[in-house]
């Protein structure tokens, strides 16, 4: 029961975070929302694994956690790189 409630809550949370992702207003807000959704998806998968009685899905959750981190960091890095090269452009 608690599992189902958790799943539903997580789904609601993802939906709400999507609003923030669309609304922005800055790139960083979007990245924040993306990160939020990423970690929530990890949790959802873990919970769903238990819900369906297939806990071996956790591998996927692990990968998600990794990829999510790498892509958030990577995206940040690229935002920075883009900005730096623009600044050089101006100077």
């Amino acid at each position, binding site marked *: 029961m608690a599992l189902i409630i958790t799943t539903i809550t997580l789904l609601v949370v993802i939906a709400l975070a999507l609003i923030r992702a669309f609304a922005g207003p800055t790139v960083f807000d979007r990245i924040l929302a993306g990160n939020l959704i990423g970690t929530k998806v990890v949790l959802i998968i873990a919970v769903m694994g238990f819900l*369906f*009685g*297939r806990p*071996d*899905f956790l591998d996927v959750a692990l990968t998600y956690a990794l990829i999510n981190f790498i892509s958030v960091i990577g995206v940040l890095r690229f935002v920075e790189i883009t900005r730096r090269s623009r600044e050089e452009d101006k100077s």
Partner: protein
Amino acid sequence: MILDLFNYWVVIALMMIGFFIVIARGNLVKKIIGLNIFQTSVFIFYISAGKVNGGTAPIVVEGAKLYSNPLPHVLILTAIVVGIATTALALSLVIRIKANYGSVEESVILKQDKL
């Protein structure tokens, strides 16, 4: 009866959004994003077709009788790889186009070369 197909219709809606972005947007990068959405929706379409009610993931476990259809999964694995390959190639083309034309807007490029 109608609700049985609801899942497919959502996929179709998504597919058409992607398709629309591809043909209507002038920005080359956005076109590629549209193409990606288009492709992903086709993937979802396949995967939906592979789902069996009450079935579980096609990895053998004790006690499970009904599995979802593994074949669409295999096909889509291949298709995802194909998709990312296309995306990578398309993006590098865009980079070269930008380097040569100074723009990634379709209209600007067409104006420059009268293609």
